[in-house]
């Protein structure tokens, strides 16, 4: 239990997808113009992460790992293709389900849903999970069960949402600022994210 709580908080604050690993940067910068759209995308990413990381965990440990299907054969070099397949399929499934049962939410999320398939945060979380399976179980970052994987995916999603919503809020305010012309738009956004990342560094010893 302690391990899961620690994993959850670490994945939000210390191993934050944006500030520590720069994952999902493209949509992070493109969509964070207002708080409302940021929140929509953040929730969609959280949902997809919570589903795909445990599914990929089961794939990795039950199918791809050393000697799982055939004795003595390690299939983990296939993980890239399988993981991206799971993610693309899952995004499609989520899109279809949302469209069928909640057309209003579907309209609100709009183009963001299909965009998630190529969001590096989703793929990145699965690849980090693959690395963490091999860690020593006493390590706070280790992922030893499918529940750990799910909590890790959920926590990473929350961390990502936190990052994009706060950037959206800052950019809404920044429209009234007096920024030098060549720095406007992208340049200043990068510098703001850099300062935010610097602030997040103060969490870096967090342990529960």
């Amino acid at each position: 239990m302690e391990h899961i709580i620690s994993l959850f908080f670490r994945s939000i604050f210390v191993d934050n997808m944006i500030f520590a690993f720069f994952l999902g940067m493209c949509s992070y910068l493109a969509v964070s113009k207002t708080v409302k759209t940021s929140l929509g995308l953040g929730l969609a990413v959280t949902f997809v992460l919570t589903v795909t990381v445990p599914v990929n965990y089961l794939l990795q440990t039950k199918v791809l790992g050393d000697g799982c299907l055939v004795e003595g054969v390690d299939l983990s070099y296939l993980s890239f293709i399988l993981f991206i397949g799971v993610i693309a399929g899952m995004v499609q499934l989520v899109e279809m389900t949302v469209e069928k049962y909640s057309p209003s939410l579907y309209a609100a999320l709009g183009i963001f849903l299909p965009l998630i398939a190529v969001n590096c945060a989703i793929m990145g979380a699965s690849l980090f999970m693959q690395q963490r399976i091999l860690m020593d179980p006493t390590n706070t970052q280790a992922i030893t069960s499918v529940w750990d994987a799910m909590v890790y995916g959920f926590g990473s999603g929350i961390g990502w949402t936190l990052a994009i919503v706060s950037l959206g809020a800052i950019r809404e305010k920044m429209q009234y600022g007096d920024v030098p012309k060549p720095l406007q738009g992208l340049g200043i956004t990068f510098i703001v994210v850099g300062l935010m990342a610097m602030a997040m560094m103060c969490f870096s010893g967090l342990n529960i």
Partner: protein
Amino acid sequence: MALFSKQNREAFTNPLNLDHPILGQVLGICSALAVTSQLKPAIVMGLAVTVITAFSNVIISILRNTIPNRIRIVVQLVVVAALVTIVSQILKAYVYDVSVQLSVYVGLIITNCILMGRLEAFAMQNKPWPSFLDGVGNGLGYAMILVIVGAVREFLGRGSLLGFQIIPDACYDWGYINNGMMTMPAMALILVGIVIWVHRAYFYKEK
């Protein structure tokens, strides 16, 4: 059509100037920031992306008339994923220490927006040879930023380039200290912000 006609040259040089994938179109930033704490992984990553962009562009451009429009994204992802798997295995075999440093970011080339962007915008409409040039141009444009940011961060953060010490010991004796901030993720963002600033300031003047 000549091999290096004006049109083909533009396909190659445009991404290096005005249509720069990172600075102009804001694509593929994720990995650009993460691998640049030292120069060597930055160069390897730049080369890997150049090779993958070029060849996936060629493959998709050859297949472009046979791919059904509805499933083109899946086909593109599979082609890219296969190429990334090959490159990742080659890196593991020949430069193992760098592939450990790059860790998950080699796999993340699959979701690099530069690749999908170029496949969608260029390779689906053009012949293989211009697509190849376009891929190489975009890959090199990406590599250029990686090398600039990687060199600045390694020089200021560790006082070395490619692992060789540049700043002499005498400077450290006089009290010079490496800027540890430069090796942190936060400074990569600020450096890229400054590079964008300089790039835009230069091109705004030209216009």
